[in-house]
């Protein structure tokens, strides 16, 4: 599906087109990796600049990074609990930061100016592979968290408070990654599409409110993903008061 109206190169609408990289006989979505490398590079650059010369009296970028760190620590501590949050803070924080920079990068960087042979650059989180990958990582990590902390007693969680909960808890293990991945994917893709459609119909001013709304939902989605991931891990490591 390719629409090219008004000879505006940046108001082009493509859905489901990918820049395929073929290595051996596996296929990769090249545009996802390209844009993710750009946003990861920006994130790392910010962090390297901010942590290069840290002092006890923070200033400039260090201040901002400390604010971020504090925010993520509070998020992880609130959801996972005082005892286990330290082990999971880097994972939760990375999820938040990566999703956040992906979403905002997708919205703020004028990717359309870069012409690709096929597909188009955009937020890496608007590709189902990225979100499913992260959702599966979350699933793996909460299983790992529960098993490593409680051993096989982790599975008591499935029959608490009553064994009637067993089927629901098993279903939850499938719905958790499904809802995580589709929520993020759907929101970001829909936001990109809304902006693209509005830009396609009226290229001036009208898409701006949708863009601001997009920035807002992007941030919220990153927060939701990280909070839910932390919450699942917290649920898995939670010790029942016997």
């Amino acid at each position, binding site marked *: 599906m390719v629409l090219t109206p008004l000879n505006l190169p940046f108001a082009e609408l493509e*859905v*489901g*087109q*990918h*820049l*395929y*990289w*073929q*290595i051996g006989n*596996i*296929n*990769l*979505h*090249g545009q*996802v*990796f*390209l844009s*993710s490398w750009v946003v*990861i590079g920006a994130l*790392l650059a910010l*962090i*390297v600049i901010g*942590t290069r010369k*840290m002092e*006890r009296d*923070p200033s400039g970028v*260090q201040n901002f*990074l*400390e604010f971020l*760190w*504090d925010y993520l*620590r509070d998020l992880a501590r609130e959801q996972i609990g005082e005892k286990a949050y330290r082990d999971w*803070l*880097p*994972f939760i*924080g*990375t*999820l938040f*930061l*990566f999703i956040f920079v992906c979403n905002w990068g997708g919205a703020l960087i004028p990717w359309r100016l870069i*012409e*690709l*042979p*096929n*597909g188009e650059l955009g937020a*890496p989180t608007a*590709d*189902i*592979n*990225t979100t*499913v*990958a*992260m959702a*599966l*990582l979350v699933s793996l990590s909460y299983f790992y968290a529960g098993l490593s902390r409680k051993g096989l007693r982790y599975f008591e969680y499935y029959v608490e408070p009553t064994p009637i909960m067993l089927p629901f808890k098993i279903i939850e293990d499938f719905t958790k990654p499904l809802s995580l991945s589709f929520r993020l994917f759907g929101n970001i*893709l829909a936001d990109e599409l809304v902006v693209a459609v509005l830009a396609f119909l009226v290229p001036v001013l009208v898409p701006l409110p949708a863009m601001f709304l997009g920035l807002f939902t992007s941030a919220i989605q990153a927060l939701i993903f990280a909070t839910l991931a932390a919450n699942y891990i917290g649920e898995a490591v939670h010790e029942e008061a016997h």
Partner: protein
Amino acid sequence: MTWLLLAEAAVPEGGLFDLDATLPLMAVQVVLLTFLLNSLFFRPVGKVVEDREGYISTSRADAKQKLEQIKRLEADLQDQLRGARQAAQSAIVEAESEVDALYREALAEAEAEANRTREQARREIESQRDAAQASLMSQVDQLSSQIIQRLMAA
């Protein structure tokens, strides 16, 4: 830009829900990013923040201790000041009473002296008057005897 297409042959159909090897590679990438951010961001920043929190709490405890010490010293000094005031007050009272006693003593002495002097003067006057009276009496006697002699002679 065609270098971005690593191979042209047999490009898949694509689509929105096209899951392929991007998924595991992206997962690996996220895991790598987690380790990278852990060593670049979470650990160093966490160390700085927690060091600062420790520094602040020890400084605060230190300051609290010093404040307590100051309060103790202040109370001590207040006590000393009160003691000194009391001492001064009692010294003043003592000096006043001493002065009073001295004054009374001096006054009494002066009064006694005056009384004595007056008594002496009175006694002197009395004796002189007595002496004068006696001499007058003797003169009167003499005169009267003379008068009697003259009258007798005449």
